[in-house]
């Protein structure tokens, strides 16, 4: 692409040809307001708050959907543009419950931010906001249609990124609504609870179910021993909530913040990620050696599990019987840790901090009570944790770094990269290679499985035996792989699937503003965490080794089966 010259607010600038006016303005330091626009999505051009003036064009044009042309004269700051944008914002507000103070989105709301920028100080016009029932039918996501501004970002991500397609824009005129079919609740349709809709909603119309009150209550209960686990990806995303740039690694401050909230122990899901590799790696070897169902597909991502259960039940026998790291942690905390620390499991309260809304659903499943109690008591998303910290007035930037507690806080670099697409695969390969070959890997980085390409595959040489592996992230890509397996087109042995684009770093519970660019930075940060770790192979995690010695015996052993696996394949047969 070549460059062309345009005039932007009287200034002649050179910009790439074919980009939008919005992009051209941004590259020249002018951030035009947007609501329906999302950098990862197709252009929708329906909110109209990005309109600008183009000389020679009768009406204002949407800058998001209009490409720059040689010699184009653009004005973004004329009284005409300003009046129009302000009027559109007022029109949106007139149809919006004016409850900003009590809205979960509050100051993180894009509409409110733009309104503040434009100095909207009174909202004229008739108040027309509806009073539809709020959809609280799932344990993960709350949908409040009254706050919806009909930008279409949620439907777009649901249809095109995830290809689940349960959110539609229907009806017309002022009756237009974005919801599941026939106004049903999310629990009544094929929603997999990935929360990508909530992550892209510019306002408070779809958001995570808020579980912060439960956590406050547990922390205040003197009878509870409250422990917390943090997912791998949270350490590289939480800082964004406190105005640090994407990709900031803030493990120490995260631990310190949790400690100051009053958690008895601050543990790490990375520990149980290493444990997952031990179990899943051995499951893979077992299946290869005993003619089990292949390819083996990972089971860490509950959004993916929900998707497979609803749309590809025939693939359930392929999915690893391993619980996710979150659930392995809960089971270990209320068995091994309870025994070791002499605390009754019923008095232990396990909180997870997850990048994920589907984890809230996973935690309450009946099969996730192997300790005899609900293994994980409460799940907070990254955004909810940030809200708690802000509430407590904890200045994240001033915290002194702290370290995870032992033993359930000890981990390796292999566990850290669980948080990115390709990470589980790489962690598994590091361990499986060494276990199978008995040799030490000379190079730990499996760069062939890294990256943000939607579907990736590679061949790995396990000392003479070629193993074909594949990775997919985002459900549209998972669908491609699932179809290939069904058609018997590929002879993969091991497949990693993550529900959200980018893996957990792009999870539905992550800080707002996640884009491809942001995912890339969070991903790089996780690889940095990995390479900075003294230990980078799960099977070398001393706490995991100790856990097997003292409690589980061996991977895939009897106790492992009881606490760390579930019987997915049998369930599938029951379904059929």
């Amino acid at each position: 692409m070549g460059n062309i010259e345009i005039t932007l607010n009287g200034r002649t600038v050179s910009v790439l040809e074919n980009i939008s006016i919005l992009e051209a303005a941004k590259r020249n330091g002018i951030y035009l307001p947007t609501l329906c626009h999302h950098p990862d999505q197709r252009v929708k051009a329906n909110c109209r708050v990005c309109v600008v003036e183009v000389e020679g064009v009768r009406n204002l044009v949407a800058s998001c959907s209009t490409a720059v042309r040689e010699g184009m004269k653009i004005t973004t700051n004329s009284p005409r543009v300003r009046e129009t944008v302000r009027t559109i914002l007022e029109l949106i507000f007139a149809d919006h419950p004016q409850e900003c103070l009590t809205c979960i989105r509050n100051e993180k709301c894009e509409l409110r931010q733009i309104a503040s920028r434009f100095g909207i100080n009174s909202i004229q016009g008739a108040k027309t906001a509806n009073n539809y029932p709020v959809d609280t039918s799932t344990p993960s996501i709350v949908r409040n249609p009254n706050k919806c501004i009909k930008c279409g970002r949620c439907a777009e991500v649901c249809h095109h990124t995830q290809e689940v397609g349960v959110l539609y824009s229907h009806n017309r005129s002022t009756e237009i609504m974005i919801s599941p079919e026939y106004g049903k609740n999310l629990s009544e349709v094929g929603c997999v609870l990935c929360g990508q809709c909530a992550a892209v909603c510019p306002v408070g119309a779809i958001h995570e179910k808020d579980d912060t009150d439960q956590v406050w209550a547990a922390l205040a209960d003197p009878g509870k021993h409250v422990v917390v686990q943090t997912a791998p990806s949270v350490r590289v995303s939480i800082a964004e909530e406190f105005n640090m740039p994407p990709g900031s690694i803030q493990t120490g401050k995260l631990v310190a913040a949790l400690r100051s909230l009053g958690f008895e122990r601050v543990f790490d899901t990375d520990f149980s990620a290493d444990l997952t590799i031990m179990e899943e790696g051995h499951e893979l070897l077992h299946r290869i050696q005993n003619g089990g169902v292949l390819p083996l597909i990972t089971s860490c991502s509950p959004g993916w599990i929900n998707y497979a259960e609803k749309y590809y039940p025939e693939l359930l026998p392929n999915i690893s019987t391993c619980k996710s790291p979150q659930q392995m942690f809960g089971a270990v905390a209320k068995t091994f840790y309870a025994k070791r620390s002499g605390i009754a499991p019923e008095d232990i309260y396990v909180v997870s901090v997850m990048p994920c809304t589907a984890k809230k659903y996973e935690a309450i499943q009946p099969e996730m009570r192997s300790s005899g109690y609900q293994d994980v008591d409460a799940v907070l998303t990254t955004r909810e944790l940030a809200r708690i910290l802000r509430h407590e007035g904890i200045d994240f930037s001033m915290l002194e770094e702290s370290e995870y507690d032992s033993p359930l806080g000890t981990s390796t670099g292999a566990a850290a990269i669980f948080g990115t697409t390709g990470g589980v695969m790489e962690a598994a390969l590091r361990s499986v290679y060494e276990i199978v070959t008995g040799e030490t890997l000379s190079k730990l980085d499996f760069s062939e499985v890294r990256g943000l390409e939607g579907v990736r595959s590679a061949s790995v040489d396990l000392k003479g035996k070629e193993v074909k592996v594949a990775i997919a992230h985002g459900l549209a890509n998972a669908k491609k792989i699932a179809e290939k397996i069904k058609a018997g087109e590929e002879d993969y042995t091991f497949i990693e699937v993550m529900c959200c684009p980018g893996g957990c770093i792009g999870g539905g519970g992550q800080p707002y503003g996640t884009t491809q660019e942001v995912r890339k930075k969070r991903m790089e940060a996780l690889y940095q965490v990995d390479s900075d770790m003294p230990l980078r192979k799960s099977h070398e995690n001393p706490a995991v080794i100790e856990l097997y010695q003292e409690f589980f015996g061996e991977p895939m052993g009897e106790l492992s089966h009881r606490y760390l696996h579930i019987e997915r394949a049998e369930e599938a047969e029951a379904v059929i």
Partner: protein
Amino acid sequence: MGVNNKELVFNISREEFVDLKTYRERGGYTALQKALRQPPESSIQELKSAGLRGRGGAAFPTAVKIEMVRNNGETGRYVICNADEGEPGTFKDRFIMTHLPFQVIEGITLAAYLAGAENGYIYVRHEYPEVQRILRESIKEAEEAGLLGEDILGSGIRLKLEIFSGAGSYLCGEETALLSSIEGRKGRPRVKPPYPTQSGLWNKPTLINNVETLANIPKIIEKGSGWYRSIGTADSTGTKLISLSGDVVNRGLIEVPFGITFADIIEEYGLGAKPGRTVKAVNIGGASGVLVPGFMLETPLEYTACAKAGITIGSGAIFVLDDTRPILPNVHNRVKFFLHESCGKCTPCREGLRQANVILSKLLSGMATESDVVLLERYTRAIQEASFCGLGQAAGNSLKSSLEYFHEEYLAACGQECRDKEETA
């Protein structure tokens, strides 16, 4: 339909039905024969020289549109005849299709041949079942006569033409919403570019033209651009069908050469206002058009002159209001119409019209204040300036023009009580 019985494009009486035999006797299908004998470029050049512009409202040069599709490398192109005639007060396409169906079909066949399309649709509004029946029968007849379908007139050229019925949405007359409708999607407009000529029906290059536009093509090819240019003016060639209704003596469909003034249309063809009354306002271009006062009617029906005067020729509907009619109920009616027909996709159209409706209701019930009128003006600007598609942009036309030319009626509608309250405040 010309009063002076001039030789125009649609030379029939209002009562007449021109069947295939009669159509051919009167020179029908000589254009197609001629076009098949000469290189397509010559026919396109003829249309270009004739200066034919789209009669649906946008007035885009027809030959240029045909060329855009023709020059697109992609094959599997489509031709679509837009017969969704949903503009209130417009009934011209209905007349052509029910009285001169073969002129439309020949026009579509010519356009398809010139654009290189082998498949076509006539998108007929749901409310025209009679039109759909006549067109279906006429298509069948044309096919049987070798004028449509495979190997047209032995030339090896083919065109499969089908009727597609709309489902009652006004917006589906907007070309990209129309495409979505045929594809089985929601009838909402798409982002342009890509334009239909680049990526239209099922992502194929698509030529979409209005019924009247297409029906002009055979006459131009048959009689030549010189003849066509002799009608109308240098700026706007040929004729325009006018759907004349409202408070005039003689209502109905007429064909007029471009260049005639609106006053003359009303006087000559409509025989003026009813006895004892005077023309107060005229709505030009259908519900999406403007409302102008009597003094503006000296403007000639001509694209440039009308654009300069802020008059939208649109579909060519002229609706006359005499001095017994208040303006506000008329505007309110249009606003309600557009609010109902808005697809709801973009904010200014959906929310702006909703608020405009509220203010007009307040005005009509004497509950509005002058500040409501100011607010209405602001909403109108946003609707016009920032709506996604032509529907929204045009929805503001009657609001804007009436606020400009009949402002005193808005002010008069503000309740005295409310005015007092405002003054106190």
